[in-house]
């Protein structure tokens, strides 16, 4: 049992005032090296920890602590790990999925919010937090006519602080751009890394799909939108570096599939790809079991695995070891390396979520687009 909980029970079951003090004096979940203890306080018939860690059961029961309305679960957790969870509270036959009321740390995504468990030693990177010394870039909407989709598409364009037309800039195109901005603080990260000279001042196009599950799963229209519509439109409007070394494309999850697919359709267009937790589902034999949404993904990845080719000069890949996708990402790695591309692969104790992708941005961006820090000696 966690030593703090043990201390609470040293003289028998605690009374209400002692529990109030215990709740007030501690941060939850209770974290110690190698372990984490979840606490729930309230009336319930059953309480479960619901989390999505590959290889572990998705629901683990909390135990009622004798003589109190407390529930607890201690589990192993390697240091610096991070995962998202909810609590499932069952009472009178009613099931409720709730964020942990004792844990104020939340991660947001397009489906809502989850509680975040940060293992011993985890700290949110300082470069992902607002730095008052960093100048802000600007974000403006660009509306362009997409011949690929036959409609107008809106793109959010980031221009770095002190943008000048007399200079040329690298271009990075980001899938799920609005989500990256909202849930991974991409704008703040860009401002900070540019301010620290760790990446060059760059132009970033944040795109958002209209029908993500169709467009990001190997849709040739999407590849044409990126390669035939967006990049040329950006190049005519802004002073961009004219060769592939100055261009990058990135995405997470299905956005990484869309990235690899677009790059494979336009293999000379992008020098850098950043692939975060790519949903690179494939089947070696028989049919996959990931559902019909993944049919086109599997077709594309199977085809790419059968006829692999270089799609960029450098690829940064990352995946959380608590994701089921770790298998697909590890499988893709040697294939990409064998095509003569430089591949930087990173595994972390994290799962399939925006904060994982946020925490990897520095490594991915600085490796893909090294900044002038190398040239600056103050």
């Amino acid at each position: 049992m966690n030593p703090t909980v043990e201390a609470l029970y040293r003289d028998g079951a605690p009374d209400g005032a002692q529990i109030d003090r215990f709740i007030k004096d501690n941060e939850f979940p209770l974290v110690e090296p190698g372990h984490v203890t979840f606490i729930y306080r309230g009336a319930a018939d059953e309480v479960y920890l619901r989390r999505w860690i590959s290889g572990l059961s998705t629901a683990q029961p909390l135990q009622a602590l004798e003589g109190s309305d407390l529930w607890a679960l201690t589990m192993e957790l390697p240091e610096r790990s991070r995962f998202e969870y909810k609590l499932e509270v069952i009472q009178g036959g009613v099931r409720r999925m709730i964020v942990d009321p004792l844990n104020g740390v939340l991660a947001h995504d397009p489906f809502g919010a989850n509680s975040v468990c940060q293992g011993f030693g985890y700290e949110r990177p300082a470069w992902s937090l607002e730095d008052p010394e960093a100048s802000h870039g600007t974000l403006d909407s660009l509306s362009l006519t997409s011949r690929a989709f036959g409609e107008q598409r809106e793109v959010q364009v980031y221009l770095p602080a002190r943008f000048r037309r007399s200079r040329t800039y690298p271009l990075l195109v980001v899938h799920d751009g609005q989500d990256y901005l909202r849930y991974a603080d991409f704008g703040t990260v860009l401002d900070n890394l540019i301010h620290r000279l760790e990446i060059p001042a760059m132009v970033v196009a944040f795109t958002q799909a209209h029908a993500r599950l169709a467009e990001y799963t190997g849709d040739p229209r999407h590849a044409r939108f990126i390669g035939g519509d967006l990049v040329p439109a950006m190049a005519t409007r802004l002073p961009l570096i004219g060769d592939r070394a100055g261009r990058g494309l990135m995405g997470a999850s299905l956005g990484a599939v869309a990235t690899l697919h677009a790059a494979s359709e336009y293999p000379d267009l992008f020098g850098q790809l950043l692939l975060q937790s790519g949903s690179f589902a494939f089947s070696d034999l028989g049919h996959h079991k990931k559902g019909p949404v993944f049919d086109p993904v599997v077709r594309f990845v199977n085809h790419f695995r059968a006829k692999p080719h270089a799609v960029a000069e450098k690829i940064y890949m990352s995946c959380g070891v608590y994701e089921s996708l770790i298998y697909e990402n590890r499988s893709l790695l040697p294939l990409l390396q064998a095509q003569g591309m430089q591949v930087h692969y990173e595994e972390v104790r994290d799962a399939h979520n925006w904060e994982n992708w946020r925490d990897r941005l520095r490594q991915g961006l600085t490796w893909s687009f090294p900044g002038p820090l190398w040239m600056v000696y103050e």
Partner: protein
Amino acid sequence: MLGPQSAKPSLRAVMDRLQVTGPVVSITAGWRDSEGELDDLRKDVGCPVEDLGIYQRAEAIFAQEPELLALHRERQDKLLELQQLYRIRLNAAMAAARKLLRTNGQADLLRLEQRAAIAQVRALDRHHVRRIAAIHRDFNQRLAGITVPTAREQREAVHRQARAAGLVLISGGHVAVLLNRIRLFRLEPLLAVKPIIAWSAGAMVLGDRIVLFHDNAPQGRRDAEVLDAGLGIVEGLVPLPHARDRLDWSSRTRMALFSRRFAPSRCVTLDGGSQIHFADGRVTSAIGCSVMLRTGRKRKWVPR
């Protein structure tokens, strides 16, 4: 030549030693957009300082002279690409040299192979500087063939200001930008005859070769690279600003290779408080500097 001035400013003390007569001007082009923000600098030196403003003047010239801007961009693109090509060859040559330095074997066999591997890196560095010089020559020849009145006017104004100066301060910052702007305004001959105090990147451009290095960058370590020839105002010296933070002194092989690669030039640290005094192109004395040895260690530097 001084180490970084932010934590341990030593400008005032050095200026007192120099007994400056005449106006003090600064070149802070390495600060790029912050060029000319001199409040702290003026406080440090305790006297009026005027900046030559060559970074912002260049921006204004580029806006007025599209032909010059196009030439400039073309040269910068070529230099960038050449640096990438050099890096491909350098990575392989350095990896081989490093591996040989770490290999155990018959001493007589190994020593010759190590020497040959380092000689290859040195030859590559020399080749790279020659290729860069050819790009600069081409730029200058083509520049001579176009009319750039704004550039001429601005250059003359800068030269007038620099000629009247009793001392030139050259700050740190972006070393490539600093070098580029000094050359664009053809300040080399003027600087060669003026008392100068230069720190960090400013000190780097005074040498005969500019060496970029950072073992602790977020994207991982890279081998040191030759950026370009310097102004050659001080010879036989590779100044290493922020050496304490930027170099991995725990890797003896890495430091030994660094030192042997650039010999006979001395690789000398320029950390906070360091000073190197020079006259007529030669170093005369040094304070608070260490020299990198061929063993990969360092020791206090006493120039002879």
